[in-house]
C-alpha cells in the first residue's frame, strides 16, 4: 500500500515538473515578436528578465503569500524597487503567472503596457502614436514597437547613464599625412 501511494505521488510530481518545463520553453525565445494587437503594430516583447524565476507558480504555488513590505533576502534579491516604492509592493502588480491591474483584472506579461498605461496615460497615448519610445522598420509600412519593459526596467524605470561615443576631431588635432 505504501509503495502504491509513493508511486502515485512520484507520477504527480513528474507531471508538475513537465508542465513547468514546457511553459519555460515558451518564454525562452529571445525577445519574441508578438502578433498585431488591435490597432497597434507589431512589437517586441522582452524575454522574462530572469528565466529561472518564470513561471512564478513553480514556487509560489507552494508558498503562502507574504504581503508585508520587507527586504527580500532569500529570493529575488537582485530586484531593487525604485518605482513609487512607498505606495507599492509585489502583489500590487503581480498575481499568479500574470500581471494584476488596479481593478483586479489580470493581463499576460505580453500585454504589460496595459499595466504601465494605468498611471502613465499620456505616455501610453504617445507610445501608441509612435512618439514615445523607439520604432524601427518602415516609415509607411511594417513597424516594430518596443513595449515599455524593452527599454525600462519595470522595477527601476529610470534610464541608466551610458558612455558617449568619441567627440568629433578638433581642427587642431588634424596632422599632415
Amino acid at each position, binding site marked *: 500500500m505504501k509503495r502504491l501511494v509513493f508511486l502515485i505521488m512520484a507520477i504527480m510530481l513528474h507531471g508538475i515538473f513537465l508542465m513547468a518545463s514546457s511553459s519555460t520553453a515558451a518564454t525562452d525565445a529571445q525577445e519574441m515578436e508578438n502578433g498585431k494587437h488591435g490597432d497597434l503594430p507589431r512589437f517586441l516583447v522582452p524575454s522574462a528578465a530572469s528565466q529561472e524565476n518564470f513561471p512564478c507558480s513553480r514556487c509560489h504555488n507552494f508558498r503562502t503569500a507574504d504581503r508585508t513590505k520587507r527586504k527580500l533576502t532569500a529570493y529575488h534579491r537582485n530586484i531593487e524597487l525604485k518605482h513609487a516604492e512607498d505606495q507599492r509592493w509585489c502583489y500590487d502588480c503581480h498575481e499568479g503567472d500574470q500581471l494584476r491591474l488596479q481593478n483586479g483584472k489580470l493581463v499576460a506579461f505580453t500585454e504589460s503596457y496595459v499595466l504601465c498605461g494605468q498611471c502613465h496615460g499620456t505616455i501610453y497615448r504617445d507610445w501608441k*502614436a509612435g512618439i514615445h519610445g523607439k520604432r524601427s*522598420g518602415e516609415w*509607411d509600412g511594417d513597424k516594430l514597437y518596443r513595449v515599455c519593459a524593452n527599454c525600462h526596467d519595470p522595477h527601476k524605470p529610470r534610464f541608466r547613464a551610458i558612455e558617449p561615443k568619441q567627440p*568629433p576631431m578638433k581642427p587642431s588635432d588634424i596632422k599632415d599625412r
Partner: protein
Amino acid sequence: MEENGRRRNPLGLKLPRRTFIKGALLGLGSAALLPGQAGAAWEAFLQKNFREMSDAEVRAVIARLEKEAAGEWGKEIKIDASKAKPGVKFGYGLDLSRCIGCRKCVYACTEENNQSRTPQIHWITVLRFAKGEKWLDLENSEKYYNPKEVPEEGFFYLPVQCQQCENPPCVKVCPTKATWKEPDGIVVIDYNWCIGCRYCMAACPYGARRFNWARPGIKAEEINPDTHYLGNRPRYKGVVEKCTFCVQRTRAGKYPACVEVCPVGARKFGNLLDPESEIRYLIKNKRVFRLKEDLNTEPKFFYFFAT
C-alpha cells in the same frame, strides 16, 4: 612681334586661320574616336546634370559609375536612382526632452552614408547647452564634450544636421545647379556636377554641409555597398556632401539610420502629407520649434518636447 602690322605667333610660324581650324577639328575628332579609357573619360566629361538625363541616360551613367567605383574602392558598389514617390514630403522630429547626447546617431550615419573616416566627416553635430542659459546662441554651444557618462547633470543636447529646408539658401547660391530640392523635399547634390566652390556651405545657416578636402578615406570592408546616386555613393575629392535623410533607405520605405539607432527613441520620421503619420501627430500635439525660424528657410526638421 608686330611685323608689317600682322601679329605672329611666338614660335614664328605662319598659321592661317583655315589651317588652325582644320587641325583643331582633326584633333578633337581623333580624341573622340579613341577607344577604352579615353572614351569613358569623354563620357564623364560630357555627363549631363542628373535632372536633365533621360532614364536610359541615367542607366548608362550608373553602369559607368559602378564600374569606376568598383575599380576605385576595390568593392562592388550598387548605385540606385529611385525617384521620389508622389504624395510624399519627408519631415523629421527630434525630441529634445529625450536626447541624451550619446552620439550614436553620428557614427551610425557615418557607416550608412560612407562618409570619409580620415579626414573625418560627420553629417550630424551634437551640441551641448547648459540648462537655463541663453541657449539658442549656437556659437556658445559645446560640441567636443567628452564626459564619462551622458546625460550630464545640468546640460541638454541638440543634434544638428541638414534641416531639409523648403526654401533652401544653399540651392539658391549654387552656380552650377549641382544641388536642388527633390519633389519629396530632400535637398540633394549631384557629386558629378559639384565644382567645389563651397558657396552653399557659406549660405547654409545651420553649418550642415561638409567638404571633401581629400579623397574620402574609407576601408573597402567599411563601405556600405547599397547606395543612391543622390545620396551615399562614394564621393570625390573636392565635392560638398550632407545629410539626405538617408535617401537610399527612405525611398525604399525604411527609416533613416539615425532613427533606427537612437537608444532613447528621440528621433521621429515620416510623411508630412499623411495626416496619420508620426510626424504630423507630434507637430499637432507637442511643443515644436524649428532652428532659426526667422530666416524664413522653412526647415522640415522639427525639434519638440514630448513632456
